[in-house]
């Protein structure tokens, strides 16, 4: 049996099937987790997938961050469980304080849906452990609010702690320091704007996303 992965579904989430399919293709034992769920016992990984949770009302991730499941996600993360927020999931993790900073409207004020190239900048996180530093991956982005913003002290802490895991090679959205993905101090909570599940087959134009998901499942297998 592969690692047990829970994919959280909020009203308005729309990437859960893609994420579940991509992780399932790598041998993960995937199930969906509804946002009213209060216990994540028995899971090895929690994925917060992309979409428009609660219609993105107020701010992307703002309402979702108060969902019942987020209390359980915080406990799961505190216990060392692997949590990965993709796109809207990254926004939820920032809004709920599990990751620092925030995602602001893209600098060009346009919705961006395109393949982007990112470079692996840290191998300390659950999503990049064992991946060669500097490796370039082509993974799509699909967002309006994807410009990562934080204060100078937070940026210094991210860089000093080797917590920036992915950087854009051609910054598409105005993210500070070309940041495409970050981790918490322990490296078990990760957020990224690119969608690895949409780069999970050559039929989709790239299978580079599987590099990250394979690293994630390998990280978890190593600790289970």
């Amino acid at each position, binding site marked *: 049996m592969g690692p047990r992965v829970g994919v959280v579904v909020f009203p308005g989430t729309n990437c859960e099937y893609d994420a579940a399919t991509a992780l399932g293709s790598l041998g993960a034992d995937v199930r969906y987790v509804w946002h009213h769920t209060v216990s994540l016992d028995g899971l090895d990984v929690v994925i917060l997938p992309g979409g428009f949770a609660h219609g993105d009302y107020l701010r992307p991730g703002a309402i979702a961050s108060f969902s019942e499941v987020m209390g359980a996600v915080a406990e799961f993360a505190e216990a060392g469980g692997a949590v990965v927020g993709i796109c809207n999931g990254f926004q939820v993790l920032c809004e709920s304080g599990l990751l*620092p900073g925030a995602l602001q*409207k893209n*600098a*060009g004020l346009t919705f961006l849906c395109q393949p982007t190239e990112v470079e692996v900048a840290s191998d300390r996180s659950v999503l990049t452990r064992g991946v060669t530093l500097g490796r370039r991956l082509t993974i799509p982005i699909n967002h309006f609010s994807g410009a990562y*913003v934080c*204060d100078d002290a937070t940026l210094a802490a991210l860089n000093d702690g080797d917590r920036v895991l992915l950087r854009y090679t051609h910054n598409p959205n105005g993210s500070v320091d070309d940041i495409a993905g970050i981790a918490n101090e322990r490296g078990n909570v990760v957020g990224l704007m690119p969608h690895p599940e949409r780069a999970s087959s050559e039929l989709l134009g790239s299978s580079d996303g599987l590099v990250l998901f394979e690293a994630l499942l390998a990280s978890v297998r190593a600790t289970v």
Partner: protein
Amino acid sequence: MRFDARVEVTLREGIADPEGATIERALPALGFSGVHEVRAGRSFRLVVDADSEAAARELAQSLADRLLANPVLERAAVELAPR
């Protein structure tokens, strides 16, 4: 006591405001000159029941800081008027 509260949420100093900048760039094309430092924000209107103006202000500010604004990017200013 009942109060009309208005909460204005604006980006903090130093946070890039692409919306405000875009509006500012559009103004000369419409013939408006001499307008600078356009900042975009959001306004919320609430009716608050509380024992005093101070209590109403504290309640409105507290919910604004907790939910209406993201403190990483934004600040919230509360204005109150007795109903």
